[in-house]
């Protein structure tokens, strides 16, 4: 097993399996057209399904971050009062409110919750990130089901090697969730993968320019955790137990040839699978 530095150093030597297209090999041109036909049918099928707005979806997904902080806050409140009645009081007040149709008490606005998350101590911070990964894990788990039932030609249960699984995540899962594919996939063929998304959709609404401070970047970072959970969830549903998978998200520089995006950094998902 290579150490982490080795992996980084050998970065350039790593393979770059082509995610974007199924380049036909000499041997099976005939088969590839069959594959392309299936791919085409899948696309038509996907287009025929009921849809909702992506803006609404992204807002729902991103709102999980402040929501998870709000939950942390409320649970902390109840614990610190050391008062078993705390729960009941809140519930009763809520029930009364419901009866006279007054709006329930609101959590603080999203930006304030995100700031609180940034300033929270490590333990709290980690609990919130865990909550986000849990939500992502559940989504990832179910997304496999969703894609299985759409007769996806890129997904089989038999003889699916790790690389095909990762390609499935890069192409199908990402396209389903973010309307785009992972830009670049690298692997050492020994269970280590780097998935690069230079325009990670959920954070494109945070317009940070090249001057953006380290602090601002750190405040946006929790928004990467749902995707971390999704990756682990998909892998779990295909038979790679969560304890055998490490997935970490970090910022990377965007390649110069990429047109300017509203968010200044790309994202790298480092996936390591023990087999």
């Amino acid at each position: 097993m290579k150490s982490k530095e080795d992996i980084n150093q050998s970065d350039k030597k790593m393979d770059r399996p082509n995610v974007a297209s199924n380049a036909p090999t000499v041997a099976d041109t005939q088969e590839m057209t069959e594959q392309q036909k299936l791919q085409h049918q899948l696309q038509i099928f996907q287009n025929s399904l009921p849809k909702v707005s992506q803006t609404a979806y992204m807002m729902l997904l991103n709102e999980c971050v402040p929501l998870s902080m709000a939950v942390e806050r409320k649970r902390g409140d109840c614990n610190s009062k050391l008062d078993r009645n705390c729960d009941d009081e809140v519930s009763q007040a809520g029930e009364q409110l419901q009866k006279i149709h007054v709006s329930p008490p609101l959590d603080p606005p999203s930006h304030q919750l995100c700031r609180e998350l940034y300033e929270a101590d490590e333990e709290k911070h980690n609990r919130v990130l865990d909550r986000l990964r849990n939500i992502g894990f559940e989504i990832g788990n179910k997304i496999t089901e969703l894609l299985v039932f759409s007769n996806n030609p890129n997904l089989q249960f038999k003889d699916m090697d790790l690389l095909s699984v990762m390609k499935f995540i890069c192409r199908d899962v990402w396209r389903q969730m973010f309307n785009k594919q992972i830009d670049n996939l690298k692997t050492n063929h020994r269970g280590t993968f780097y998935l690069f998304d230079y325009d990670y959709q959920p954070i494109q609404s945070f317009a940070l320019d090249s001057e953006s401070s380290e602090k601002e970047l750190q405040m946006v970072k929790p928004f990467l955790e749902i995707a971390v959970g999704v990756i682990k969830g998909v892998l779990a549903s295909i038979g790679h137990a969560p304890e055998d998978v490490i997935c970490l998200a970090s910022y990377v520089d965007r390649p110069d040839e990429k047109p300017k995006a509203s968010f200044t950094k790309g994202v790298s998902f480092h996936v390591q699978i023990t087999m």
Partner: protein
Amino acid sequence: MSAPAQSKSLKAIGEDTWKNKTEKVNAELFTLTYGAIVSQLCADYDRDFQKVNNHLFSMGYNIGVRLVEDFLARTALPRCENMVKTSEMISKCAFKIFLNMTPQVTNWSSEKDAFSLMLDENPLSDFVELPMDAMKQLWYSNVLSGVLKGALEMVQLDCDVWFVSDILKGDPQTELRIKLNKVLKDEVPIGED
């Protein structure tokens, strides 16, 4: 312009915006994502559904205050002169553009300050079935009440929004009630007069 012509144009605006100016995702993905959020909340609060309801509402409120900006930027629609117009804009434009559905507007109060939206289809809860304990207390789609509350407040309409009934609870239909409390005055931010 006569009233029917006006409402037809709202419908046309909604449909055109949905068809030509909206990026879309699979509705089932939306459903399962929302499901993951609700189930995480139920676990966090050990199935205290009243608290889950409140959090969903609050989450919706925080979405609504920002979603309305996107809505106004996309449609460039003018201010509504009364609640009847507001109700149509919500049903034929807002619901159409974001969730691709057009809930029926009904059950008007005699003062025309409260109405109901009947959600025959609901992309938040398609194929969802609640366990017995949740059926009694959980308002599964409560994020919608919050979204409407937040969005309406941003256009100076102080409203109460709540679910009256939900198919998931065994009711024959899903009814979302909106009641206007007062029209807020445009407030000039401090130091900007």
